[in-house]
């Protein structure tokens, strides 16, 4: 059976109860107000006339600010939230990977919890028993299988949740902001699995702020803003729309508008592509940008735990990168210079080298992707 999703003018309006605002003059008035003021019922449109279609092979990125309706849309697609109006047709089995750490019984053992989650996902107990070992192995929890779940760390629980959730194949996968689940070793394993898992499924809908992740997985994109669908189509124009949206928001913030919450900490991402050492100066080439499209000016090196901020940074035009990520700003490339005292050769930087990016030099804390060429140069095996 082929899988498909069809949404036609789907809206979701929910009643919310809000406490009346009132200017309390002292703390007693505020406490009394909190206790006795009746909440007011207001109708809030979470989704407003959303129409789109997804067919087999579509990997759809759901873009938008916090609170734009991404998670709500996923829950409607998952059949959890009822629509207020419109019609929806979803063909194929679906699984939501919205929150991986929930739905456990803390006092039961790890093994029992695997059964619990498995049966909650409508699997037969007999099917589950063959899979227990491989789930434990993937989560790296073989020795812990008879421990109480409560005694596991948060990261271990996330790993377990991830391993269980991805152990079944579905036609449609609905994924929300997939946050880091544990150490880098597991993350690499998980990303690998996720890609394999997605390639086995017919439709993927992925909501995330990580442009790099979206770009590596998705071929289609939709942009939501305040519950409305503002764009739907291929992923690159969708990313452009998203960046435009963020840029226009930034300009209104600059004019003094409130609601800067999303823009306070934009996600920085980028890549270090080439490194050279000449005359006591390290030259690092690459590109760097951020999720809200603001210019990023800071690159730093961390050598054996010591930070070195670039002495100068020159921006250059990188239309290839801008095209790939749907950026409006073409000037995302950079060449940064570093001076590290007593350095005689790149090999002396050591393998512990980290390359960090941020809004400016002092706030550069986000690790950038390091291209193989850079690693090779630092290891000394340049060909």
């Amino acid at each position, binding site marked *: 059976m082929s899988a498909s999703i069809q949404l036609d003018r789907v809206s979701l309006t*929910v009643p919310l109860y809000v406490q009346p605002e009132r200017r309390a003059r002292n703390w007693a008035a505020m406490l009394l107000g909190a206790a006795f003021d009746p909440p007011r019922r207001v109708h809030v449109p979470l989704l407003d006339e959303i129409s789109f279609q997804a067919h087999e092979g579509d990997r759809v990125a759901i873009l938008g600010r916090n609170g734009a309706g991404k998670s709500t849309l996923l*829950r409607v697609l*998952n*059949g*959890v*939230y*009822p629509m207020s109006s419109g019609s929806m047709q979803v063909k194929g*089995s*679906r*699984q*939501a990977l*919205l*929150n991986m750490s*929930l*739905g456990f*019984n803390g*006092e*039961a053992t790890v093994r*029992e919890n695997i*059964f*619990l989650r498995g*049966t*909650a*996902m*409508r*699997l*037969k*107990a007999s*099917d589950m028993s*063959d*899979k227990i070992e*491989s*789930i434990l*192995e*993937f989560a790296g929890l073989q020795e812990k299988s008879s421990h109480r779940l409560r005694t596991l760390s948060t990261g271990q629980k996330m790993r377990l949740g991830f391993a269980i959730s991805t*152990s*079944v*194949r*579905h*036609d449609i996968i609905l994924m929300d902001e997939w946050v880091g689940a544990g150490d880098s070793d597991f993350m690499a394993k998980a990303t690998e*699995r996720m890609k*394999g*898992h997605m390639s*086995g499924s017919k439709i993927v809908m992925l909501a995330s702020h990580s442009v790099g992740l979206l770009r590596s997985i998705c071929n289609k994109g939709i942009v939501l803003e305040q519950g409305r669908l503002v764009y739907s189509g291929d992923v690159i124009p969708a990313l452009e729309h998203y960046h435009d949206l963020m840029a226009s928001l930034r300009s209104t913030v600059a004019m003094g508008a409130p609601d800067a919450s999303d823009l306070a900490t934009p996600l920085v991402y980028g890549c270090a592509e080439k490194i050279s050492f000449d005359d006591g100066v390290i030259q690092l080439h690459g590109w760097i940008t951020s999720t809200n499209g603001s210019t990023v000016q800071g690159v730093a090196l961390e050598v054996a735990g010591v930070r070195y901020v670039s002495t100068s940074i020159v921006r250059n035009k990188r239309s290839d990168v801008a095209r790939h990520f749907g950026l409006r700003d073409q000037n995302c490339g950079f060449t940064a210079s570093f001076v590290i005292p007593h350095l005689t050769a790149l090999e002396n930087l050591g393998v512990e080298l980290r390359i960090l990016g941020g809004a400016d030099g002092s706030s550069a804390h986000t690790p950038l992707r390091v291209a193989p060429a850079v690693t090779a140069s630092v290891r000394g095996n340049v060909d």
Partner: protein
Amino acid sequence: MSVNERRMDVLQAPERDVSMHSLFHDLAASLRNPEFWALSSWLDIVVRNRQSRLGIFWLMSPALVYIWGMGGFFASMMHMPLAGFVAYVAIGYLVFRVISSAITDSTGAFATSAPFILDGHVRLTDFVLRVIATAMFHFIISLPVAALALAIYPDVHWIGLLFSLFSIPVVIINAMWIGVVFALVGARFPDLKHLVGNIFMFAFLLTPIIWHADTMPLGSIRGTLMRFNPFYHMVELVRAPILGQAIDSSTPLYLAVMTVGGWILAILAYRRYARFVPLWI
């Protein structure tokens, strides 16, 4: 992909069998697939007492306290023979406990299962059955304590004991609709949980469990109040035949009306409100 990965990926997920409109459809689907609710309620119960040596025998302690402790105390207070009174308390307590835990637990049933529901497990009858199953597990585990009380009762009616094969399912069927209705209302109004908790102390005293029903004659106000109490009729239906007492003439009619009316209410409420539950919790 490793060998393991491939082996794990062979399982294709089953289609969902859920309507969120028809109570019967969802209930039938839940009964056909008991794995989830049976396992989760069983885990909830057994896991709680793992820390102690007594383990699952701990679960008998409430029954011991009520039947032998309270029953013994009231028997001596009212100058009644212990052998006759504890059996009366035992059956009354067990039936009352099934219904009362169905109500109190179901008011929070959807909220406590929110992670499952929001993750797409939307067959809500599973969560109601989880409550009923928990109540029944407690019932069954308390049976030995009650059996001991019956063993010393001088005049157990074996026909009446056989009748419980009919009367106990009647209690369970009623517990189900009560569970559905209270779960829906409890999801919408979370305060219900506290209200219900407070009312149950009174309901326990209003139901003839630690006192004899015949002390409330038919004509009196208290007698009328007692006969309005649904617990009274359910307790009587199970208890009276076993102890060789007559069932009140109003009980069969009362229960028939309550069962049919309750189920209609549950079906309508489920059809109208079940799909809003994910928004409420």
